[in-house]
């Protein structure tokens, strides 16, 4: 008797537990859905609207083709390989310029931020260069370097250098003097202070510059590839438009957007790993 009782009791508790568990799970799933909806709802609505509007004819499908045709063009381009080649050459141009900007901009910025005299005497010319649009200088670079790869990479480099350089200088200059003094009290040398106090403090600011530089690199890449290029994603946008392959044009534009997103994501991840402390703030 008692055995059955307890068994029943156990089964009863078990089902109660299961249903509570299921309810909890459903609640969690619902909360998750709401969160996803809040984050991506507008984006999804925008895409749905595009698709429907293009198919129904609210939008001129010759200018705004339905998304499935754009995706098909993208797939064909990638599977066919020619879009991949474009991506590769574009990445090479932007990557080379961006790397050069980082390799020159960060050390130069660290130096300039640390040595006041250098910073003071270089600042005016930096401001002048920065305010001069890189695109306006592109013809000059073409005159100097020809219409080949060199001028393209250089114009991207030029525009990409300044955000990183200036952000690095700023990051070094805003080092907390109280922390520097603390390190001094404990006998830290100038080099140690730079390495362990100034530099880590500048990292978040440097990353702001890097992300701005990455965006700028892609922006300038397209502009450079629209002039005198016969390969690259930017070229493909212009070329497809010229040949009235509108789905392909949008496919290239979409690729560019994806490139920008992934560059930003990669930098964000790197920043997250390097400055975990910076996101703990209250």
């Amino acid at each position, binding site marked *: 008797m008692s055995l059955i009782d307890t068994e029943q009791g156990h089964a009863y508790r078990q089902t109660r537990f299961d249903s509570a568990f299921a309810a909890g799970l459903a609640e969690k799933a619902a909360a998750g859905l709401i969160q996803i909806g809040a984050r991506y709802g507008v984006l999804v609505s925008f895409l749905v609207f595009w698709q429907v509007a293009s198919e129904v004819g609210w939008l001129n499908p010759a200018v705004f083709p339905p998304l499935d045709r754009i995706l098909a063009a993208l797939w064909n381009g990638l599977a066919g390989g020619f879009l991949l080649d474009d991506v590769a050459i574009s990445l090479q141009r932007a990557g080379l310029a961006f790397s050069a900007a980082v390799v020159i901009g960060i050390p130069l910025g660290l130096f300039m931020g640390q040595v006041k005299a250098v910073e003071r005497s270089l600042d005016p010319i930096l401001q002048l260069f920065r305010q001069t649009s890189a695109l306006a200088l592109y013809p000059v670079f073409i005159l100097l370097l020809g219409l080949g790869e060199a001028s393209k990479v250089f114009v991207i480099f030029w525009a990409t250098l300044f955000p990183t350089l200036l952000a690095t200088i700023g990051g070094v200059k805003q080092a907390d003097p109280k922390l520097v003094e603390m390190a001094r*009290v*404990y006998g830290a040398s100038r080099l140690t202070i730079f390495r362990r106090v100034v530099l880590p*403090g500048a990292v978040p600011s440097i990353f702001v510059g890097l992300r701005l530089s990455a965006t700028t690199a892609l922006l300038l890449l397209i502009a450079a590839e629209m002039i005198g290029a016969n390969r690259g994603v930017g070229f493909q946008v212009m070329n497809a438009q010229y040949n009235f392959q509108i789905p392909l044009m949008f496919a290239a534009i979409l690729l560019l957007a994806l490139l920008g997103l992934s560059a930003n994501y990669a930098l964000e991840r790197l920043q997250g790993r390097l400055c975990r402390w910076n996101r703990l703030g209250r």
Partner: protein
Amino acid sequence: MAEAQTIGRGEVSIRNLSKSFALNGRDLDVLRGIDLEVVSGQCVAIVGASGSGKTTLLRILAGLEPADGGDVLIDGAPIRGVGSERAVIFQEPRLLPWLTVMGNVAFPLEVRGLAANEAAQRARRYLRLVGLLDFADAYPAQLSGGMAQRVGIARALAVQPELLLLDEPLVALDAMTRMTMQEELARIWAEEHLTMVLVTHDLEEAVYLADRVLILPKHKGSAIRTIEVDLPRPRDRSDSRFVWLRQFLLAEFGLH
């Protein structure tokens, strides 16, 4: 002071110290004719009106600011810059935000060339002393103000200084935490056989912690007033002598 029989640890001897700053093209006398002796193992509190030069005096002792004239000796030797026998506890914790609590306490030890595991071991010991061993892996942004200040205190103690300089170390804390921390400081001071120079505005704090309280004069060149605090330790804030001394100091300020 020709032949000191027992060379003290962290002994301070200041003679005829003067210091002025250039302010708006004029020389501002901040300290003039200051004499001060702190015996090894003593705790001396320095009080005085705002602008009387307390922080300046402490910064000179720390080696962060040069004196203009006079002698400043530590253990009989003139001060030349910062020194490994001294540590400072500032008004703010001044923690490096990118290092954990552990990393912050170990920082000066690493700067001074201690091996990493030795530094970590020492840091752990002093974190236990301030009751924050459980937070060794936390980042400064995750601490309360009082906890952060305790990390700063652990960092200063971990270098095992002979002379500990404190500039209003508890002023940013709420009254309750401040009282607890005063008790902690008193305990640590005794345990570690420290020599301490404590700048404070809190007269009760001065009476609670110090063997002697010095009042820096407002009028430059006037003599420093010294009040001996000959109360048994640990001190009792409600003791009548304690209350009387605190009132006495208060009157010194109220009347002058």
